[in-house]
């Protein structure tokens, strides 16, 4: 199946295109033959039986046929106009990125009030909680991981371990010693950073993909320990009745000396949700602010240099281990902050929340956002996490595909597929290009985002 249509003359060549699409469809039919066509189900006596659904195979083959045909035809188009200079483009994308950023922050600050105004307190609760807070947690996690993956170029597959450290720090410190959230928040950040250093120190001299696998192993080890060390973490059951958030000491309850009585408001659960929303917004913005500032400092420049070319970096006398370690520890610290926020929001933590798929979700956000771009990560978090929430609500799909159809189960399927497509289509991300933040006098003709390993 050579790419026959690659160097064909303009004008559509239907023959080879159909041939290629037909081949792809045939392969798809082969791939889906047993796994899609025959479904294993347990019957009443718990014995496996097969049900047949051959129409799915035909559908899959047809979809691939059409998709492949379109791709081939698109590829065959003349490409003469494509070679435009990249400099103005990247300027405009920078402008757009900045504009999205400012607009996003303004929208976020008014978002809770607008929803409350239009939907009323009880209607707004779902929107602020499921969409606002949930997305912002992932924005923050994405930005934290972005320091490690996007800036320093270290692939960390166990990021959720630090999230877990932060969550369990708050859960244990508050339930055992009765410490308040405002004390535990910095403590959990410090603890997570310490763990980052402890775990990072031995592994950071490994090459990229080994590092990824070892961090994955550490993430799993921490989870298995949390499951099995029941004296410490209460195992699978997790830790419940974690103290709720307070407004700097004032509880959000319907009583004397609470938030609502202090400010003369009628009690409503929306107050707490709104406060949580602004808290995570501030935490996320703090992460962003620190990252942006650090990028301008020598250490941030060293991260980016390290990402582009480790050997050149070492030749210039940068201590690569320390540089990697700072990135790792800082990323872990923000993960820890997010973790303790997660614990105070849920009021319950268990090892189930910190599985590998969670790490993969955060990584997917960073990858799809374009590793290194802050706005890109935020947009990706909105699309992926918000998209997941929307999938839960697509009731109308049941009308088409039948009652058993549950759109939210396709979430991870879409994540995985999107990661692959992203790597093939735009490995530098959708929103922004990966550009060095410092130039010698002027930009070179070829920007760093266009070459393989940073030889611009």
């Amino acid at each position, binding site marked *: 199946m050579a790419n026959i249509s690659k160097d064909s003359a303009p004008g559509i060549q239907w023959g080879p295109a159909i041939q290629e699409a037909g081949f792809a469809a045939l392969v798809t039919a082969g791939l889906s033959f047993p796994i899609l066509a025959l479904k294993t189900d347990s019957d009443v006596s718990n014995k496996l039986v097969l049900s047949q659904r051959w129409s799915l195979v035909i559908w899959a083959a047809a979809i691939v046929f059409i998709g492949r045909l379109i791709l081939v035809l698109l590829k065959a188009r003349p490409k003469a106009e494509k070679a435009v200079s990249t400099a103005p483009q990247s300027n405009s994308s920078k402008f757009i990125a900045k504009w999205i950023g400012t607009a996003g922050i303004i929208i976020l600050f008014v978002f809770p009030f607008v929803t409350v105004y239009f939907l009323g307190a009880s209607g707004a609760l779902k929107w602020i909680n499921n969409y606002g807070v949930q997305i912002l947690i992932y924005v923050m996690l994405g930005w934290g991981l972005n320091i490690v993956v996007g800036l320093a170029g270290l692939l960390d597959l166990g990021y959720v371990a630090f999230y877990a450290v932060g969550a369990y720090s708050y859960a244990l410190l508050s339930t055992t010693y009765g410490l308040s959230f405002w004390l535990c928040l910095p403590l959990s950040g410090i603890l997570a950073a310490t763990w980052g250093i402890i775990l990072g120190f031995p592994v950071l001299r490994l090459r990229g993909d080994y590092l990824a696998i*070892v961090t994955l192993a550490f993430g799993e*080890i921490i989870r298995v320990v949390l499951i099995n060390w029941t004296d410490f973490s209460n195992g699978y059951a997790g830790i419940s009745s974690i103290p709720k958030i307070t407004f700097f000491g004032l509880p959000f309850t319907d009583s004397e000396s609470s938030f609502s009585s202090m400010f003369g408001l009628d009690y409503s659960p929306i107050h707490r949700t709104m406060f949580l929303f602004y808290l995570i917004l501030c935490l996320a913005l703090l992460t962003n602010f620190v990252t942006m500032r650090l990028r301008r400092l020598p250490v941030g420049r060293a991260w980016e240099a390290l990402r582009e070319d480790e050997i050149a970096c070492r030749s210039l006398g940068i201590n690569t281990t320390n540089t990697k370690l700072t990135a790792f520890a800082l990323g872990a610290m923000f993960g820890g902050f997010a973790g303790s926020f997660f614990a105070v929001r849920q009021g319950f933590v268990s090892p189930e929340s910190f599985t590998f798929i969670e790490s993969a979700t955060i990584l997917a956000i960073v990858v799809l956002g374009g590793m290194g771009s802050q706005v890109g990560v935020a947009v990706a978090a909105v699309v992926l996490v918000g998209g997941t929430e929307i999938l839960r609500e697509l009731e109308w799909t049941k009308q088409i595909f039948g009652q058993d159809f549950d759109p939210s189960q396709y979430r991870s399927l879409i994540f*995985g597929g999107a990661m692959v497509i992203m*790597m093939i289509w735009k490995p530098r991300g959708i929103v922004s290009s990966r550009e060095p933040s410092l130039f010698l006098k002027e930009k070179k003709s070829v920007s760093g985002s266009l070459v393989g390993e940073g030889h611009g």
Partner: protein
Amino acid sequence: MEIFLQQLINGLTLGSIYGLIAIGYTMVFGIIGMVNFAHGDLFMLSSFIGLIVFMALTQLLGLSSPAIAFLLALFASMLLTSLWNWSIERVAYRPLRGSFRLAPLISAIGMSIFLSNFVQVVQGPRNKAIPGLFDGGFKVTQGGTYDVTLSYKQILIVAVTVLLLAGFWYLVQKTPLGRAQRACEQDRKMASLLGIDVDKTISLTFVIGAALAAVAGVLYLMYYGVVSFADGFVPGVKAFTAAVLGGVGSLPGAVIGGLLIGLIEVFWSAYFSTDYKDVAAFSILAITLIFMPSGLLGRPEVEKV
């Protein structure tokens, strides 16, 4: 002593399965230098294909002999899993050659998530159990505190593994295909200059790796009698550990590493705690990578500037 002997048998059985999967990791790593993260999920997929074909043969077509059905399921699974891995390489990895360093790994992680969730969506999230196959076995020792048994399944697993490895060794060492494969492993550019179709060789590497993983998958299904969509991840990581322990890129290393990991896991469970058996495997992975990155039989990696 009896417990030790029994665990030795169990460990070698499990180790054979890990070794078969580990070869797929090590071959792909050797030839294109990427960690094929999706290989564990491919193993799980092959198990499902084997299960479905077996069910179809015995239930829908009414084949009465389970042994023949099992054999046919094994071959069908090898064939279809190879097709899967061939397609995965074409779609997800080949376009990324020459992209930046981490791109293939991220793509492989995406593929891994995709595969496990694909199986979950199309086959349902529950455990799938098959009726017992080849039950029974020999008693190796009798009368002591504990009867040591060697089941037919275990004999079958070890025998199939040895047979396959012999065939595989012949393929890599003696055939033109194996020569091309080894040449690409040493120097891809030079190999292509000497007229070897590198793309085809890489595809074949994926196909061979998948076929071995499929054998492992079907044997795993037969041994444990149950499979679920999430079963790819942990065996995948353990097989990768085996590949690393034996030295990534070394084929005998992968087998030795697999046997070692199987033995360590089984003995750890028997003498320490089953709860922490995964921790043991993961720790070995971390320790090997940190202190002995070239493994037992691997070549030390030379950094080229």
